[in-house]
């Protein structure tokens, strides 16, 4: 059946809202960047182009992102093969542990690395003591440190995507290859790898974009090493507003260029439930030595990967001022957690992050459902544009959106669709919402696509109106997709640092900002306790999302 496009006023309304929230702020940034001290002109563009520091920041963003992709792939791909294809003691538990870096929000991961490998970190001190060194064996600073954090948190994309693709591989394809006389390596090269390309391409794209927009790691560990996200914030703090706009434009262009180049490798999502056949059986390792060796290696690896989590937990029990020169903290109490819950000033950021993330996620889910109904179900005119707009914020680094929203909503000009929200409590939920839209809409739209349209028609033929069909049929069936999208979005917003640092007000200061200020006041215990809370909430929400995904 051919696509028929219908005109629809709700679709026009949604389209306008999305243009206003997503396209308009970015367009304003573009315009601001093209304004010189005396009217329109390329004045600031010229300044940008003439400064070597700008070029080196742009280059830094590009190469660190490419290096993050390479390093993450080098770690994630072998792990995916190991855990999807082989069977050894503990393979199931370890398979989950390997994905756990995902429960650390970016800033929390950075914090944990600081406690572990920083100048006074556990590992550094341990090595210093063992080898009798005068000072720490390394300094956790510069591009290397950033790359380390990136690889630790982003190999998970390669690992999860590739593992899922391997698990959904149809065993009969391998058998077919074997029956056609293909030897093992040829079967892998000609049959297995081509089927993994979409997953690997998707992971590469996701890693590249995440790393291009990464802010926490370069902000804390960068030192002299500048990338564009930190450069933008520094320029803005200097008061060079227009130059910050030009920098923002350059980063946006780099992101869009990367998206255009990498898009070719990123195949469309496989339809939900499109999996056929049986996954190939795991290779059982028979040799006892090999089994033990592999298991030992895997457990060692798991310990290494869990060190940041454990460190965070350990430090969170250390009361302020009790840990000075000892290699291991001497005192442990629950004091920091009590402070978090009982001190109204300390509890406030938790409450803030909670309601900000909940509100932004709820609205994002509602918008995604509306988009799904209009674009997938009713196939309205402009549905494709709505979907493209929803996906757009994903391609644009968080810093860029923070600047764009700060620009758009710092002027009172209602006739131009601009009101002052900067400095009010509404700016952060709005920013979180925009950043959440691609995450929720991706899951929800895929959910809508996976629904059999005749279920809706069946409801209609049984006399159920649109509202009842949505409530009784569509939404219950979409539950897994809704939960998956909402949980991912909630976790992102709950731990957000990159947009918050530019837009927060004292009344809406989120957990991430409180972590930063605790750290600056050398209050590491409280910072770690906040980190643990973020980590646990993320883990719990992920567990809910994953559980509903497998049940649906």
């Amino acid at each position, binding site marked *: 059946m051919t696509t028929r496009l219908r005109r629809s006023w709700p679709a026009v309304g949604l389209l306008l809202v999305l243009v206003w929230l997503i396209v308009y702020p970015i367009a304003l940034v573009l315009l601001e960047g093209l304004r010189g001290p005396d009217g329109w002109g390329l004045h600031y563009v010229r300044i940008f182009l003439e400064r070597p520091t700008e070029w080196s920041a742009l280059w830094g963003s590009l190469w660190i992102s490419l290096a993050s992709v390479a390093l993450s792939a080098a770690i994630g791909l072998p792990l995916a093969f190991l855990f999807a294809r082989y069977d050894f003691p503990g393979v199931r538990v370890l398979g989950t542990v390997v994905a756990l870096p995902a429960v650390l929000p970016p800033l929390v991961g950075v914090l944990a690395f600081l406690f572990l490998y920083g100048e006074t970190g556990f590992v550094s001190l341990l090595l210093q003591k063992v080898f009798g060194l005068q000072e720490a064996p390394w300094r956790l600073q510069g591009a290397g440190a950033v790359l380390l954090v990136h690889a630790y948190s982003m190999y998970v994309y390669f690992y999860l995507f590739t593992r899922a693709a391997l698990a959904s591989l149809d065993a009969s394809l391998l058998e077919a290859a074997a029956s056609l006389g293909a030897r093992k390596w040829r079967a892998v090269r000609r049959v297995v790898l081509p089927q993994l390309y979409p997953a690997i391409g998707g992971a590469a794209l996701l890693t590249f974009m995440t790393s291009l927009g990464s802010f926490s790691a370069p902000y804390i560990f960068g030192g002299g090493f500048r990338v564009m996200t930190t450069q933008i914030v520094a320029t803005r703090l200097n008061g060079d507003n227009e130059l910050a706009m030009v920098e923002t434009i350059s980063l946006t262009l780099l992101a869009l260029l990367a998206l255009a180049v990498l898009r070719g490798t990123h195949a469309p999502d496989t339809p939900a439930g499109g999996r056929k056949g049986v996954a190939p059986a795991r290779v059982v390792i028979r040799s006892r030595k090999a089994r033990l060796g592999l298991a030992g290696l895997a457990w060692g690896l798991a310990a290494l990967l869990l060190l940041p989590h454990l460190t965070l937990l350990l430090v969170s029990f250390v009361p302020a001022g009790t840990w000075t020169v000892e290699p291991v903290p001497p005192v442990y109490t629950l004091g920091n957690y009590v402070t978090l819950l009982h001190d109204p000033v300390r509890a406030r950021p938790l409450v803030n992050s909670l309601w900000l993330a909940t509100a932004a996620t709820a609205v994002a889910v509602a918008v995604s459902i509306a988009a799904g109904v209009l674009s997938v179900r009713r196939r309205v005119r402009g549905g494709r544009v709505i979907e493209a707009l929803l996906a757009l914020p994903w391609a644009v680094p968080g810093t860029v959106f923070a600047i764009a929203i700060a620009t758009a909503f710092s002027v009172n000009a209602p006739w131009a669709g601009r009101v002052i929200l900067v400095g009010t409590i509404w700016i952060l939920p709005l920013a979180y919402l925009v950043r959440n839209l691609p995450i929720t809409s991706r899951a929800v739209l895929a959910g809508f696509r996976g629904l059999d349209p*005749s279920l809706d*028609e069946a*409801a209609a033929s*049984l006399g159920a109106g649109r509202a009842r069909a949505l409530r009784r049929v569509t939404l219950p069936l979409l539950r897994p997709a809704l939960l998956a999208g909402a949980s991912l979005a909630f976790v992102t917003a709950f731990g957000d640092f990159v947009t918050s640092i530019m837009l927060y007000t004292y009344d809406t200061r989120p957990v991430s900002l409180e972590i930063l200020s605790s750290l600056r006041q050398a209050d590491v215990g409280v910072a770690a306790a906040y980190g643990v809370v973020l980590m646990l909430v993320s883990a719990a929400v992920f567990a809910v999302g994953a559980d509903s995904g497998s049940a649906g």
Partner: protein
Amino acid sequence: MSAFLRLEGLVKRFDAVLAVNEVSLSLERGEMLALLGPSGSGKTTTLRLLAGFESPDAGRVIVDGEDVTRVEPVARRFGMVFQHYALFPHLDVGENVAFGLESAGVRGDELHTRVARALGLVDLAGYERRRVGQLSGGQQQRVALARALAPEPRVLLLDEPLSNLDPTLRERTRREIRELIRRVGITTVLVTHEQDEAFDLGDRVAVLRSGRLEQVGTPEELYSAPANRFVGGFVGRSSTLDVIVVHAGPDATRVNIEGVEWTVETAPGVPPPAAGAAVMLVRPESLRVTAPGAGALTATVTARRFVGPSALLTLRTERGTLVEAAAPPAAARVGEVVGVLLSRRNGAGVHLFQGEQA
């Protein structure tokens, strides 16, 4: 007697494709009509126009004197059984069947009674709390039927009701559906691409091709008096041969086929054809196989297939035309050269069409 359900000049266009082209049909109350046609013939679109899932570019749908062309599916009170059943997977069997009743405002004890009655109708009494996913294909189909019938719709629509079932289950299910619908006495339209199904289930059968209604009639009418070569070829087994009409009389027509002359009985009520080129459609049972000789078409047996008590022979004439003929199993072997003749009483099994090419 006026018709209960009328389709008047329905037209549906998808971009450049005319999916349904001026289709008019009418059904008596309680009648069962089968829409038969190959894929792309417009039969499913016609059904969706009836259900209200598509709205026609022209034409009307009238049920019981009420024009429902612009009535939303929600308010149309047409029950539908979908090809893949479209049972709600998150609801159990009872909740599925209750769904339409709840839309109509039925609550409490009456709801339970009517759900139980609908399930009893399809022989699934007591299945209320079963999960849909635990049922076999045949049971799912019966739940879909019960769900569609429970709100007592005015018209029942069935989209390829048997296509999702095991071939071994099909015949039994067909019988069950037929009996159930007769018992309920509901006006029914069903879509199928299987002639067997259409003939078995439909009181009348409407044959569609490329969006056009080619012919509508009882199975007997379609078989013995196809309106054109397409209907004749689509309904039952047949072969087509290019012939030249030599002489057309009121009782018999003489045709020349590959140099051999045959006499064809003129069916009663059919006007005799004009002299000239024609296409002859012939059923296997209207041909017989003998030794090659005068008056017989010489052909080679290329395949032999046993169908019950007789064999179906595929024959290749000297000019390469393939013809199917029914014969006793021992009549000929593959590779043998035989003569082909028309049966003596051939009126119902031979049709001449002019103005169409083979």
